[in-house]
């Protein structure tokens, strides 16, 4: 009898200790940084944007055509973290008229925006990240939403075929014959303009409706430890060169004025291999 009492008491203490521990450890933050780079000869170079119209070409696509970029902007949404010991965190998407939580706009011209800080991540170790490049149905079905989805300020919204652009790229290539108008950094006098506005959020068989949002997952090379007082920092990489020479070679003498879901598919299919996990530090 006594033994049983002691055992139960012990059990009680242990479980409450366990509980206390969780509460004490609580939750912490983790930073996910998206570094936009140009990988040339296996060396990562910090991406440098040029002023519109520049004829200074630093990059080449898969078939040796030179190019440069004026603008690079993309959405990241639906981030999920997982760990080897069952730790799990989902950054819920919640969009309404005031804000769009869980959706982030990475903009190479605003470097501060490229670090996403996730708050209230349960304490634990994480070694895997998943996210979507683009804004899926949940962000479109609510209608007009605030924050980074505000159609007046995000400049990532298609009026005529309503939906969000997942990845927006504008620049120049000497082999392009121009004709790119109505974009943010290019107009009809931009002789060598290239514009890739890649979007589309639904698939309709046999039609131009293609879902160009890409859901990606990456493993870390080590565990990111999240707890109160620690803020690990994860570096993800987007290699812009790979966007133009992956599974599909993007030929600047071909369609270099992309503004429809179906036209953006070749570049969208290069997206998965253009992203990678680079490193993390505690």
């Amino acid at each position: 009898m006594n033994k049983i009492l002691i055992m139960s008491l012990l059990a009680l203490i242990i479980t409450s200790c366990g509980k206390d521990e969780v509460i004490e450890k609580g939750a912490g933050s983790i930073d996910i940084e998206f570094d936009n780079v140009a990988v040339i000869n296996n060396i990562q170079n910090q991406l440098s944007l040029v002023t519109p119209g520049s004829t200074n070409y630093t990059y080449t696509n898969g078939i040796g055509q030179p190019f440069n970029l004026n603008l690079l902007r993309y959405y990241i949404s639906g981030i999920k973290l997982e760990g080897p010991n069952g730790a799990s965190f989902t950054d819920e998407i919640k969009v309404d008229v005031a804000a769009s939580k869980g959706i982030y706009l990475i903009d190479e011209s605003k470097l501060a925006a490229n670090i996403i800080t996730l708050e209230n991540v349960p304490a634990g170790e994480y070694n895997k990240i998943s996210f979507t490049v683009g804004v899926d149905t949940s962000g479109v079905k609510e209608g007009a939403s605030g924050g980074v989805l505000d159609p007046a300020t995000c400049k990532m919204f298609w009026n005529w075929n309503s939906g969000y652009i997942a990845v927006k790229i504008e620049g120049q290539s000497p082999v392009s014959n121009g004709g790119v108008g109505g974009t943010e950094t290019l107009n009809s006098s931009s002789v060598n303009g290239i514009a890739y506005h890649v979007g589309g959020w639904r698939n309709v068989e046999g039609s131009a409706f293609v879902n160009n949002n890409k859901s990606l997952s990456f493993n870390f090379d080590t565990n990111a430890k999240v707890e109160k007082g620690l803020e690990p920092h994860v570096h993800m990489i987007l290699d812009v060169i790979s966007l133009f020479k992956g599974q599909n070679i993007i030929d600047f003498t071909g369609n270099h004025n992309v503004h429809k879901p179906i036209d953006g598919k070749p570049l969208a299919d290069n997206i998965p291999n253009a992203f990678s996990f680079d490193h993390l530090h505690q």
Partner: protein
Amino acid sequence: MKFKIFLLFVGAIILGCQKENTEEVLDPYVLRRPDYFPEITYPISGNQISKSGFELGKKLFNDPILSLDNSIACSNCHVKAVAFTDPQHNPSVGIFEREGSRNSPMIANMAFQPEFLWDGGITHLDFVPIFAIENEKEMAETAESVVRKLNASPIYPTLFKKTFPSLDTITAPYMLKALSQYMLLLVSDQSKYDQFLRGEANLSSEETAGLTLFKAKCASCHSGALFTNYAFLDNGLDVTHKDIGRALISARAEDTGKFKVPSLRNILLTAPYMHDGRFKTINEAIDHYRFHVKDTPNLDTRLKTNGKPGISLTDEEVENLVSFLKTLTDYKFISNPIF
């Protein structure tokens, strides 16, 4: 004791009165679906309609501040007296007298529509006004600039704050939600035909004959309580197309020249007809189906009888058909002082 009983009586009477009142006077700022209408498609939980939100939307709808040079409002091409269509132009004319390519569609029963515009390119009502605001042939403005003008206005910040108390500065999503609140309540369900459906009115013999004809020859596309199946169809207007219609959105060759089947509610008010407003009268539009349907590659098969394009109707049948279509005019809708 007697006094208490007296009080109870008074209470009962007051309660009784209140009950009667709520039954008779419906709150006009609540979106109601007549039970014979399709389901509401708009996700209303994200944009609860209020009197002040509706009135703000109405004010914006009628305010040329939405256009580049403050010259043209939504209501210029969506005139209430003709069920929010454009009676004068075919197609509609926008800012700087720029001629549009399409006929301004009716704004009524928007809460029940799955897709918007003649080509269905827009899937949510909130995104309809921003299309018109930023279209170069319509208002040629940017939403960003409209928002700046609204914030600088002496009246709008207060009106927005009243509707959306948590708002700090006016942004485009708030403006679009207010416009949606206004458009959502523009429900047209008070025509003679609605009264007939509800058992409150009888149709004349001509109207009844017209309804029978309509059911036999038109209702396979102009179906249901809103008189449209929302399909994109080629009704044999042209062999070559100035406007490719649905194909602009879908990029499918077989969608070339297809446009959304329009609702026929208030049809006698909404001339001119077709996506480009080419027919000035209802008889011209009906005569198209009788005599002028072209055998186009994408022609809807329902517009062919025995391999021949067109719908056969005698002159008398046309008269009955028009009598029936007149019952779809909703005078209470176009004269509603709240709208």
